[in-house]
Structure formats: C-alpha cells, structure tokens
C-alpha cells in the first residue's frame, strides 16, 4: 500500500509540474526544455533553508515560489523578444547552464553528490512524517494547482492566452497587452514549479542534479504531449500515465544498466508518435 501511496505522491507533484509546463508549452505555445531547471531551483531553495534551519517549511516554500516566479519570468522574457526558434536555443542553454550550476556549485547544492537528509515537510510545527500525511498534503497542493489552472482557463484570461498562442499580432491589434499576459503566465508556471520542487525535496529527503536535468525537462514536455495541451484533464493524465510506465518497464526483464536509457528512449518514441498521430494527446487540444 505504501508503494501505491508513494506513486500517488509523486504523481501529484508531477501534476503540478505538468500544469506548469502545460501553461508555457500548451497554452502560450512556447517550446520549453527548461522547466526542470525551475523545479530544481525550488527544490534546492527549500532544502537549503530547512537544512540550515533558517526557515521552516511553509515560509521556505513561499520563498521558493517567489524565486521561481521571478526566475521563470526572466527565462521567458527572451521569448517576448525573439522568434520561437531562437527561444529553443535559450531554453536548451538555460537547462544546460542550470545542470552545470546544480552539479558544480557544491556550496549550495552539494554538487553531484546531492543534498541528503532534507527534513520532512511540516505544517506550523507539526512534521508530516507518515506517507499518508504527506499524501494528504500533496493532494491539497495538487488540488489547489488544478483549481487555479481550471479557473484561469475558463476566465477571460485563459481565452486571451489561447488567442496569443494563435496570433500575437492580432491580439495586439485588438488592443491587448500581450507582454503582460505572457509574463503573468510565466509567473504562474514558475509558482507551480517552485512549489512542486519544495514538496519534492522534502518528500524524497534527498535531491541531486539528476532529477532536474535535460532528461527531466524532456519528461515534463512528454507529459504535456501525451496528456494533451490546454486542458486540466490532459495535465493530470500525462503525469499519471508517464509515471506508471517505468513500473511497467520493470515487468519486462531489462538489465538495470540500460533501464535509464530504455526509459528515455520510450519518452522519445512517445514524443514522435504523439506528434505525428495524435497532437491533441490523450485528453487535450491540438498542440
């Protein structure tokens, strides 16, 4: 049962990340392979505060969310200035740079060895140590994230973002502030990723750069593509399905040495297959 709970907890954390990536990729239409970098920044900030004892969990989570809002806005700003293809370069560059920082800045991140012993999350002094307690907390967090996404999408705000994805120039000609809308979407996506990072670090109690590298960003992108763009259902289905897949891979007898590449290979195949045959994903709209 604990095994199933831990799957649910991870799935809920990745639902937050899926919402974040879907906002950028699916709703605003920006190609991003750097959301795992923002996720990582959230995780390291919360871990550092908790390990040094300077802040307790909820304030640390709030700081991480604000930092990731600022970071994601800065990262997305180039997409306002340069064309889509140049943003691909920006996004790859940011992800590789972030990996370099996570791996080499031993002072803040523990380097390649990572940070062990991150304390469990606590709410106003009550530590959440049991898996079921943490599940309760992640369920609330993911639920709030889903509610925020759903409210945004059904409001005029969501309509404006969808219109921007289709034709920025026409939106500007209709008298709208395209810049402000895009920046706010990036901020929202940053908040989701930052909170997900903080919760992830405290649940796992150990983090290292491998959870926040290019492969992790590709996984997030795959979740959006498989789940489907712009819908709440798609943002939930993607993470739930993709986190279950590695468990299925374990049923097939694959030597452990190639397990990681087999998993990434599967993500690549899924990206291609959905791009060609089902650009709307399992439960979304066309990318």
């Amino acid at each position, binding site marked *: 049962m604990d095994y199933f709970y831990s799957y649910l907890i991870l799935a809920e954390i990745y639902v937050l990340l899926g919402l974040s990536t879907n906002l950028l*990729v699916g709703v605003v*239409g920006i*190609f991003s*392979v750097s959301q795992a970098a923002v996720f990582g920044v959230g995780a390291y900030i919360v871990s550092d505060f908790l390990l040094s004892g300077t802040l307790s969990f909820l304030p640390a989570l709030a700081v991480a969310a604000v930092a990731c809002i600022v970071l994601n806005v800065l990262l997305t700003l*180039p997409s306002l*200035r*340069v064309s*889509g*293809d*140049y943003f*691909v*370069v*920006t996004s*790859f*560059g*940011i992800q*590789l*740079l972030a990996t*370099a920082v996570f*791996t*080499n800045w031993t002072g803040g991140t523990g380097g390649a060895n990572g940070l062990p012993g991150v304390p469990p999350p606590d709410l106003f002094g009550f530590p959440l140590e049991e898996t079921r307690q943490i599940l309760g907390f992640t369920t609330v967090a993911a639920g709030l994230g889903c509610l925020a996404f759903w409210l945004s999408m059904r409001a005029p705000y969501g309509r404006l973002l969808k219109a921007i994805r289709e034709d920025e120039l026409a939106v500007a000609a209709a008298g709208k502030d395209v810049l402000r809308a895009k920046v706010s979407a990036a901020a929202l996506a940053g908040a989701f990723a930052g909170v997900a990072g903080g919760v992830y670090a405290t649940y796992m109690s150990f983090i290292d750069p491998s959870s926040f590298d*290019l492969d992790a960003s*590709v996984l997030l*992108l795959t979740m959006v*593509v498989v789940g489907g763009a712009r819908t709440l259902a798609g943002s939930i289905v993607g993470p739930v399905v993709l986190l279950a897949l590695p468990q299925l891979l374990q049923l097939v007898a694959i030597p452990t*040495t*190639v397990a*990681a*590449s*087999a998993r*990434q*290979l599967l*993500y*690549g*195949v*899924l*990206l*291609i297959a959905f*791009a*060609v045959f089902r*650009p709307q994903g399992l439960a979304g709209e*066309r*990318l």
Partner: protein
Amino acid sequence: MLLLQLLVNGIVTGCALGVVAVSFALVYATTRIFHIAHAGVYTLGGYLAWSLLAHGVPEPLALLGAMAGCTVLGAAIQHFLYAPLERRRATHLIVLIASLGALAVIQNLIAAVYSSDILEFTIPWASAVVTLGGLRLTGAQLATLALSLAAFVGMLWFAHRTLLGKRIRAVASNPFLAEITRLEPRAVYVTVIAIASAVVCIPGVLVPLDLGLQPYGGVTPLLTATIAMIAGGVGSLGGAFLFAVVIVVLQNLSLLVMPGEWSIGVTFAIFVVFMLFRPRGLFAAG
C-alpha cells in the same frame, strides 16, 4: 604560452563546431526546421566510426562509412518524420517536439547498444604529439583542423558554385516561388538534410578523437553551433563558421579565469548579449 595554446586549441575545436554550425544553418535556412535531431546524427557519426575501426576498417574508410550512415539517418528523419508532419499541417511547435523526440530516440538507442559510459578512440597517430615552437598539437587536432577547413570550403563551394547549391538557395529564399518554378522543395529538403548529415559526421568523428564518445555528447556542440548561426546571421554560412570559432576560442580562453565546468555559461552569456543587442545577427541578409 598557455594563452597561445588555449587559443590554438580553441581555433581547432572551433573549426570543427563551425562545420556543425554550417551544416545546421544549411538545413535551417532551407527548410526552416529547427533540426534538433542533428545533434543525434552528429553523435551517431562518432559511434559508427568507432565500430568500423574496432572491426579493423582503415581510418579513411571508417570515416566514409560513418558519413554514409549519417546520410541515411538524416534522409530518413526528413522522409519519415518531417515530411509526414508537413503533410499533416503540423504546427511549428509540433515539429520541434518531434525533432526532440528523434534526438532522444537516437541518443538512447546508442546508449542501450554501446552503454552510456565514455568510449575512447585508440588510434596511435591521433594521440601522437607534434611540438611547434612550444605549441603542442596532437595528430587528432591536426586532422580536425585540416578536415574541418576542407569541409567548410567544400560547403561554400557547394552552396555557391553548384547547380544543386543554387537550387537550394533559391528554395531557401522563397519556397513558394521555387514550387511554382518546379524546383520541388520536398526533394530539395531531403537532399539538403542528407548532405548536412554527411558533413556533420566529420566533426562528429573528429571531436571525440580527443574527448571520447558519449551518447548525450551532441547537445552542447549543437547548442554552440546554433548560437553561432544566430550570432552570425541566419543565411550567412561564413558568419556561422566564424562565430563558432569565436565562441569556442572565448570558451577556451575563459579557462584562464574559471574552471571548465562553467564554459557553458560563457557560451550562453555570448548568446544573451547577442539577443539583447543584435537579435538579427551580425551578417544577417536583408
């Protein structure tokens, strides 16, 4: 002396990445596809050459064999992935995602077949050192310099002097016009990607002679190459090559003041500076 050595090392590797940049720029200018999977073709080239050498094939033939393999892979990506997507009127974003998917498939197939550890080439002449007035150059570096410059000159000659090259530039400047004048853009696209794949195999084999092979090793060179293409101005093959050399030289010189792990930061900083001040590149046409 260290400065000079770093400068020379930078120029040598820069020429190799210049070839990556020029081949990528040729694809991008013609098809407008941001061909991320090109990094996978680059990586495959090195592994194919390694396998052929391991089976006792002589070096020049191993290079040619690897180039043939890359040509087939590149053409296959265009024919079986990009062309169907275009027929389905896929958005630009979907083509990018598919290209990223192709890169992931290539990289991880390589990792599954060869393992994800670093593979070293063992070629005696490549590690032999020539000393030129205090400068140390390996055989691999000399080969890299010579073959990269030859590949670059060959690409320029091809683009400007051959009929196919002129057709490609016509398609690049106006696909619609090319279509109604029966230049058949689609056939041209396959040819362009095939040629670019053959060419990118050359640095794909040469760079790992020194550094070794790694399944995921193509991403950083491709990033450098795309930055060089943008900084040089899309459409200017010479600009792309020149900026690849400049970026790699700056990366190498940065080793004087910071450890090598941060060179990606140097590369990226150059890109950010260009985006802020010259988003259309230095030699942009039109």
